[in-house]
């Protein structure tokens, strides 16, 4: 499309005006002016139309950043608010925190460009030795976040990131570099109200024997999309990406992942489970790309979802692209309804229908959380899932 033909919607104009005059802000403006916001005509966004969601402008931010649960009281909390960036708690040795005003952005796509553009600066975390206390990245309603995280060789960090706005546009960009033998364990929670637009992009590079281990729980919002791109660059690098989405009302959640196996002997484990009811919409797009050099890759991807109501929608696009010849790759994708027979069996034993459904859905999604090593976080996530089931079945 020629530039002259592009007519920006009111929402896009509003975004243009809202972007700061930083270098990244200008880059985002230029991109937006040239291409507009990603919309359903763009293949990667065909089920998640950002332009339509923002057509009427940026919703006013509302809600809170959420409380830190008791199981994470010892954590170092980094707050990303509209007013700026703040730090709460003690910082241990081996963790360096700096800010960077003009950090270059390489690739990442439109959401990364947008998130970089909105962030006044990048917060850079360097992990030089393993951290026993977790780090929490708390995104406030309507606030941008940009974090660059570098794990030096052999180091280990547990990271929790949350975005719990009731309304507003929240953006996040997380660039992660995992060096040799280093490991990042990450737990993400997104829960948005019907006015919340939550767009995040995570780009991870993993060196030799490094490990990226991420479990996400999403309840959606007006529009929520969490993009993850992992490049297993080194030999024997691995990633585990688990995600659960539980959607009701008219919420929308999108989990889009791309894992590139660039080095040999790498391993990928993906497990995504979703349950969608009312008129909510869940989107899963998962691509695994195995480059020619990535011999002996062992990659598995699974996405299974339940439609709990007639009006619910689940869109799934699993993709495997393989250029190496000595690899093991498998993927499975199912979308179905709850088993009527199991439901009747449970009701015959006296369990009311709503409770029986909740038990079955909980049993269905729970293996996503089995990979959570932090007991407190596992209980926290399971508890949130159970509350959702109880609320949605009553």
């Amino acid at each position, binding site marked *: 499309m020629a530039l002259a033909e592009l007519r920006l919607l009111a929402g896009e104009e509003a975004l243009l005006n809202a972007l700061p005059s930083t270098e990244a802000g200008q880059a985002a403006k230029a991109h937006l002016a040239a291409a507009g916001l990603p919309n359903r005509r763009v293949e990667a966004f065909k089920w998640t139309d950002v332009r339509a969601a923002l057509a009427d402008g940026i919703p006013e931010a509302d809600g809170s950043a959420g409380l830190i649960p008791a199981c994470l009281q010892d954590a170092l909390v980094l707050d990303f608010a509209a007013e700026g960036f703040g730090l709460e708690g003690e910082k241990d040795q081996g963790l360096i925190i700096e800010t960077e005003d003009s950090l270059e952005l390489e690739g990442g796509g439109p959401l990364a460009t947008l998130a970089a553009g909105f962030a006044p600066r990048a917060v850079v975390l360097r992990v030089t030795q393993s951290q026993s206390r977790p780090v929490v990245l708390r995104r406030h309603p309507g606030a941008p976040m940009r974090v660059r995280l570098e794990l030096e060789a052999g180091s280990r960090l547990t990271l929790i990131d949350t975005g719990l706005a009731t309304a507003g546009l929240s953006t996040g960009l997380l660039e992660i570099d995992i060096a040799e033998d280093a490991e990042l364990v990450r737990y993400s929670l997104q829960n948005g109200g019907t006015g919340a637009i939550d767009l995040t992009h995570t780009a991870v590079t993993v060196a030799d024997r490094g490990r990226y281990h991420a479990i996400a729980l999403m309840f959606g919002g007006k529009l929520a999309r969490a993009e993850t791109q992992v490049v297993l660059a080194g030999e024997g690098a691995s990633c585990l990406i688990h995600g659960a989405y539980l959607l009701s009302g008219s919420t929308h959640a999108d989990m889009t992942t791309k894992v590139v196996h660039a080095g040999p002997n790498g391993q990928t484990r993906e497990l995504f489970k979703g349950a969608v009811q009312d008129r909510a919409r869940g989107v899963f797009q998962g691509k695994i790309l195995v480059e020619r050099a990535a011999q002996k890759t062992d990659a598995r991807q699974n996405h299974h979802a339940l439609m709990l109501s007639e009006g619910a929608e689940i869109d799934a696009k699993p993709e495997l692209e393989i250029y190496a010849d000595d690899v093991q790759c498998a993927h499975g994708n199912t979308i179905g309804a709850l*088993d*009527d*027979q*199991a439901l*009747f*069996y*449970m*009701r*015959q*034993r*006296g*369990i*009311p*229908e709503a*409770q*029986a459904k909740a*038990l*079955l859905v*909980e*049993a*269905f999604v*729970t*293996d996503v959380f089995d990979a959570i090593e932090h007991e407190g976080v596992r209980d926290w996530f399971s508890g949130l899932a159970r509350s959702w089931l109880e609320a949605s079945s009553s």
Partner: protein
Amino acid sequence: MLNINNLQVEVGGTPIIKGLTLQVPAGEVHAIMGPNGAGKSTLSYALTGRDGYEVVGGTATLNGEDLLALAPEERAAKGLFLSFQYPLEIPGVPTLTFLRTALNAQRKARGEGEISVPDFMKLSRDVAKRLGVTPEMMKRPLNVGFSGGEKKRMEIYQMALLDPRFMILDETDSGLDIDALKVVSEGVNALRGPDKGMLVITHYQRLLDHIKPDRVHVLAGGRIVDSGGPELALALEADGYDRYKDAA
């Protein structure tokens, strides 16, 4: 106790039960025998309220209360229990969680308080010991990976734990070897009582050697076509169901 009068049931618009009348008084065990396709399982599903089994006529009451107007879980809370011919596997739900949820849901529906965890554990262990249900089986997700015999034993275990007033046993003997049949039958016989009733649905007489019925009914073509004492089952074993072809 159980009172069925002129019951008519359709499945997918096809009449299967065509005017069935049957009374099981408290304290009695009645057997229903019949050829394949006679409507035996349809009767058990219609009584317990499964979707797709549409009652188009007649009545069914338990202790004078209309069963047909109730949801399946409400019928269960009234004390109606079905031991399934093919028990379902419920992946991800531990057996004990399932049973405690079921027991408490029934108690709640009856206006009783929840059973405490220690009381429940004691109850579940006591019952398990009687029925040869191992702690290993109780820890697994319900029926997942169980053999056919284990599943049937688990049905009777659930029945003993939930202590229903009226029990329907649908082909409980299928898939059981002779030793398992003995264990299961002993478990069932222990649940007989003056204020309880039982309907034992079976294709073969073999089960009735172990669970002695007070009355035997022959179901063919959607109706009860013959009734008698335990000797009727023996006659059926010898002669088969051929003579009821015309009656149906």
